[in-house]
């Protein structure tokens, strides 16, 4: 998205999507997927919610949810 | 000539007679500080000496240890916290350290506790007009509190008093009435410069130094005369320029410390002798390496000086930067396994492990001993036998998987790298190119460590002066006798301002001339001003002001000179911006005796080495280095590295790929041989 209206809700939250699986480090089954900002920028991670081990870290978009409209010109698509 | 450098551990008295340098080293004694000085002078003889030049760290030590007399501080009501505030900034390396405290703040160790800092009802505006008249009754009440607390001196600094001293002077009269005769310093007399904090802290230090130095100086003068000394007793200030002792005691904040600056002054004298005006001065001491610059034959001087972080005084001082790489700097291992040198130091006591005085931490000196650079039996003229086994044990005790050879060589090379980076930084700060500079290596350990930096730095060459271990002390016999004064007035330089500027200079010059003796015509007058581009919050110091009367035609020239100086220092020119004069300075330089370097006659001396040494840890295989006695070398001698050149108090290490040549006054000039990598 390139333009964001002010959120309607007064307080905002990040959704953590539960996923099935087992943590290879602690053996727990409490896994979730969500975006984080860490070393190297934005990542979409699958993490153990008990020991915080990352099972997967996939690089997220450069500016998070923000995509400047001008960048679309080379992708041949709008917003 | 005699000079004395009163240090924390030793009092060094240095004599130069007929080009011969002699030293008497007497243990310092904080309880009776004058006694070792007199003892040293007695040993070397005072009769017939024209000058006795004195430098001391006594004032600085009193401040740093807070062994200070109790004084009061009077300021404009509402502003007594200027002394706990400073200029506010924290050191950059403590920026995310919530445990850091301002050393002179009320939460740590204030020079004057808050209850002795009292506000007085009065207020001047920056144009000198009175917003609130001095309330004498209220002032007396504040003075009565100081009397009840039995203060020994009073510092007075009112806001905007650099413009008008009336209120400060009246307060002094009231103080005398209430408190009787005791040392009082007024900011309008001590340092009439704008910006209240530095002026106030200068005034506070001034009163403290009056109390610290007065009896000492009087005693020193009396006892020297008793010994038969008939010359001048001079005190060196923070820039190692000299003042007759009575004059120095009128504004003793200037003599709070003089040690490091003396080395730079010594370099400036060497610059004249060698006709090489651009020098990087590196003094490798016990706890640190001090780096300073001589440009165009003169030390680079700052207009302020910090006794501790942000504890500022308005003293002209030689700009010296320190890096924790001295002989006693401790070698340690970081959490991630790096070999580190300094900033912690074993100091003189217990000293390096090899001294055998109970120090068990390895130091740079221990590394040099293990490498074979130091002669265990010939250290400090044989005064101290160094124990190789203790040095080895100290390095072996480090918690690291690195082999001994690497621990030692890393320590030596990292110390050299740290010094090299500091040299680059000070050069960048002053916009100079190290390639145009020679590096002077002094301090007893300087010639042993600094040639290694030639491999990292693009300097012209390294110069090891005669007697590198005494070189700083000799600086006291190389200094100018200088009377100086300064005051502030914010003036945007333009038409109609010549009168103001001229009046400021005339007043200062007349006072200085009266002091020196109006009839003297052999004095040199140096004028300058600190100015700023309108809108800047800091000043560009020491813009030269021409001689002669200051009139309407001088003002455009001042503006032009400001732009020139600004461009020279900072690389940019802003001719469209108005220039504001802030502080005006005058120096009267009086001719005085200085040390002369004796020319070395070329003689047919052998450059054959005394023996061949094995140097360890510098390369995979031991290096075979020639060992020379410095006194056997003569002008023109060449020594190819790797080589070690010994003298009583120092060792010079000529690195592989370098060559040392002996110059006209016995200095060693070290350069990289052509094609050396």
């Amino acid at each position, binding site marked *: 998205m390139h333009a964001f209206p002010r959120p309607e809700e007064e307080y905002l939250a990040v959704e953590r999507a539960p996923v099935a699986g087992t943590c290879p480090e602690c053996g727990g089954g409490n896994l979730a997927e969500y975006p984080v900002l860490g070393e190297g920028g934005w990542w979409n991670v699958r993490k153990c919610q008990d020991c915080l081990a990352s099972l997967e870290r996939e690089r997220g978009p450069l500016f998070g949810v923000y995509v400047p409209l001008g960048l679309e010109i080379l992708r041949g698509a709008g917003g | 000539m005699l000079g004395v450098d009163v240090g924390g551990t030793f009092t060094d008295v240095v004599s130069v007679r007929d080009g011969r340098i002699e030293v008497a080293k007497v243990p310092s004694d904080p309880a009776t500080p004058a006694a070792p000085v007199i003892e040293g002078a007695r040993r070397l003889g005072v009769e017939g000496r024209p000058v006795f030049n004195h430098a001391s760290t006594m004032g600085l030590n009193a401040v740093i240890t807070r062994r200070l007399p109790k004084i009061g501080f009077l300021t404009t009501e509402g502003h007594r916290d200027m002394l706990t505030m400073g200029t506010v900034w924290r050191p950059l390396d403590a920026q995310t350290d919530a445990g850091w405290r301002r050393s002179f703040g009320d939460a740590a160790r204030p020079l004057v506790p808050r209850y002795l800092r009292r506000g007085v009802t009065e207020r001047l505006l920056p144009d000198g007009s009175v917003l609130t008249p001095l309330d004498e009754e209220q002032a007396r009440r504040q003075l009565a509190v100081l009397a009840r607390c039995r203060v020994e001196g009073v510092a007075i600094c009112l806001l905007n008093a650099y413009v008008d001293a009336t209120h400060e002077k009246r307060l002094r009269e009231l103080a005398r009435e209430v408190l009787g005769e005791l040392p009082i310093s007024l900011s309008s007399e001590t340092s009439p410069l704008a910006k209240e904090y530095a002026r106030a802290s200068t005034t506070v230090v001034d009163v403290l130094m009056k109390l610290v130095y007065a009896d000492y100086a009087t005693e020193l003068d009396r006892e020297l005369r008793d010994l038969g000394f008939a010359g001048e007793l001079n005190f060196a200030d923070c820039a190692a320029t000299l003042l007759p002792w009575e004059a120095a005691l009128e504004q003793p904040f200037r003599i709070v410390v003089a040690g490091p600056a003396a080395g730079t002054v010594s370099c400036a004298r060497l610059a004249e002798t060698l006709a090489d005006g651009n020098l990087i001065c590196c003094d490798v001491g016990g706890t640190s390496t001090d780096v300073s610059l001589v440009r165009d034959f003169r030390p680079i001087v700052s207009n302020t000086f910090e006794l501790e972080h942000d504890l500022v005084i308005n003293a002209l001082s030689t700009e010296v930067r320190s890096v924790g790489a001295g002989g006693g700097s401790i070698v340690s291992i970081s959490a991630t396994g790096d070999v580190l040198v300094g900033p912690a130091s074993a100091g003189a006591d217990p000293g390096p492990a090899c001294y055998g005085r109970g120090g068990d931490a390895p130091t740079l000196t221990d590394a040099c001993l293990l490498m074979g650079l130091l002669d265990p039996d010939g250290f400090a003229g044989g005064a101290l036998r160094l124990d190789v086994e203790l040095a080895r044990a100290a390095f072996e005790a480090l918690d690291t998987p*690195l082999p001994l050879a690497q621990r030692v060589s890393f320590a030596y090379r990292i110390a050299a790298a740290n010094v090299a980076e500091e040299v680059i930084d000070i050069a960048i700060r002053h916009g100079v190119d190290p390639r145009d500079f020679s590096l002077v290596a002094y301090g007893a350990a300087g010639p042993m460590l600094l040639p290694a930096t030639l491999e990292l730095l693009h300097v012209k060459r390294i110069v090891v002066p005669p007697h590198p271990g005494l070189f700083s002390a000799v600086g006291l016999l190389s200094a100018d006798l200088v009377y100086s004064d300064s005051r502030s007035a914010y003036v945007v330089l333009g038409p109609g301002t010549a009168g103001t500027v001229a009046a400021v200079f005339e007043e200062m010059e007349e006072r200085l001339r009266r002091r020196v003796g109006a009839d003297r015509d052999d004095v040199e007058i140096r004028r300058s001003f600190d100015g700023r581009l309108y809108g800047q919050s800091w000043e560009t110091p020491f813009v030269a002001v021409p001689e002669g009367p200051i009139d309407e035609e001088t003002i455009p020239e001042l503006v032009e000179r400001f732009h020139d100086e600004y461009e020279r220092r900072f690389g940019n020119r802003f001719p469209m911006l108005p220039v504001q004069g802030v502080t005006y300075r005058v120096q009267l330089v009086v001719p005085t005796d200085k040390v002369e370097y004796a020319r070395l006659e070329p003689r047919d001396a052998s450059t054959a080495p005394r023996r061949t040494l094995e140097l360890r840890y510098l390369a995979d295989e031991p290096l075979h280095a020639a060992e020379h006695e410095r006194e056997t070398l003569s002008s023109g001698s060449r020594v190819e590295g790797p080589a070690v050149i010994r003298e009583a108090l120092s060792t010079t290490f000529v690195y592989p790929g370098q060559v040392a040549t002996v110059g006209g006054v016995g200095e060693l000039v070290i350069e990289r041989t052509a094609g050396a990598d």
Partner: protein
Amino acid sequence: MEATTVSTGATLIRDLDANAFLQRYRCDRFTATVLASRFGYVVEHMCSQLLTTAFSPILRDFYDFAATVTGPPSADYATPAVSNSIILFTGTMTDSVRNTVEEYGPARLEPGDVIVANDPYRTGTHINDLLFCRPVFHAGELVGLVNLKAHHLDMGGSVPGGFSATKTNVYENGLVLSPRALYRAGRPVQETWSLIFDNVRFGSFMFPDMQTICANLELGERLLLETVERYGAEAVLGAIEYVCDAAAERMTLALEAVPDGIWEAEDFVDCDGIDDTEAYRVHVRLTKRGGRAEVDLSGTSRQARSCINGTALDAKSTVGTAFKYVLDPRTPFTSGTLRPIDVVVPPGTIVSALPPDGAVFLYWEGTQALIAAILRAFAQVLGDAAIAGDHGSANLHNAGGVLPNGTPWVSVGQCGGEQGAYGATVDGDADTFTLSYQANGIAPAVEATENDAPVAMLRHEIVPDTAGPGYHRGGSGVVRDSLWLQPAHHYAMPLRFRVPSGFGVNGGGDGETGGVWLWEPPADGVVRQRGAGEDDYRDAVPVTGHLDPETHAPSRSGEYVWFGREPLWRTQPLAVLRYVSNGGGGWGDPLEREPERVKVDVRDGYVSVTGAARDYGVVVTGDPDDDPEGLAVDLEATERLRASRREQR
């Protein structure tokens, strides 16, 4: 790239043998050590040169810039050295260089280029902070970048200089520069220079500063190239990795020393520049497991309607700063510092605002609440090592007007509540007169301020009994009274008075809140000093604060007064403006503070006789004003008072 989690069972770097070290870092340990300090020195040398040559006071006095050495894209822009300059820039530098170069296209870079960018949503901080990146090539390969971000005097927009709490969108804020070339192959790109200088005020000052910055980058490039030539590109790249790994390892080990747990905390920004109906909450949920941590900002308020927002990169930077304060205060910051920490941040909050309506300028006000919330969360587990809250806001004040002769004047950041309290720590009582936890700088002298603007500073002092009490006392509130000698208008933007920002820790008390007031010119024209007691505010016009409606003095039970009800506060000659900043938090139980130390505080005016009894349970007798050395502690009465205080708990 390397794995981005630290496996805590891995061999520590210090225990690697020579071979393993060489394998991992392509150089030996000595070279790695020398290069580690070399990277630090390269940025330090760049800063030295910039400080020496910059025109702009904000660079000289507030170090409002940062320099970095950054690895090439193949090393994922690993950043081994960030200069010790403004704390606010520290953590955004790493991401902003990556984002800028990636958008511009690393393949387009060639030797002698300089890329410039300033969009907060891409590079963090605010639009006046221009980021300059210069690629460093060796033997035709991109081996790294040297970078500098520096505050510039103006970037256009509706407020000269930009400092304001009232701009409502990116269009008012000023010129946005997406990454573009400022130099290509050593030659200036004319249209970029024109784009900038056609849109900014004070261009004639900014122009040489920008040239200076470009010269600085050349110095950085030269120093880095010399290093590559001496040690080889492989060793340099290996050492970059080494430095970042070392920082990550230090943080991991420090985290391992903290007990595992989950802690939540929050802090607040009073309001925005539109009205006072919405206080902005920053909520933190801190999870710590072994050597890893996660900071989740869910529960944080949506972005403000005017430019007090920060971006997600600022939130990340602040998390890094908070963790440095708590766990690793003295070592240099690198991109590896944050390796064991993930930040979970919902888009569109006050600390992760989005365009075009989430305007960003006073970004540090929101992130000050964030650092406070993190410190509050840590305080629940750290015990002795907890850090109390500071005065919390920049409390920036700007004013301006026109002299009778027609000359305009401005006063910038000289007369507000910029300097205030720190929070206490295990190390002792806190300092007063500092900038906030995310800033540092030189305060203007009163005499310089009075030369710049028609103002007389009547008072700049601590206020008794405002420090958070504790075994170690917090810093105090600071009162600053400015007397305006000419008609003036004032921009006030204080944002942390609703809730005490100086929270106490480990049993310590909160510092008092402050406020801003105005006194109209006195009818008789006589200037008087005013006290800062409860009864001194009745005749004042409250500008802002949480104040008693009757007395106008700060009060927890009072009500919030909003500064924005006047967009500009106008004053006539001899009006007095007062700022009082918040007191800092105390550390440890005040009833345990040695009575002698309380007596010293009474002697020195940090605490009153009444305050000593109320806050510390210490009964001090005597007259602190007239006979400060004659004070005494009534030990028996103190014992009794403290016993009854403990019972009341």
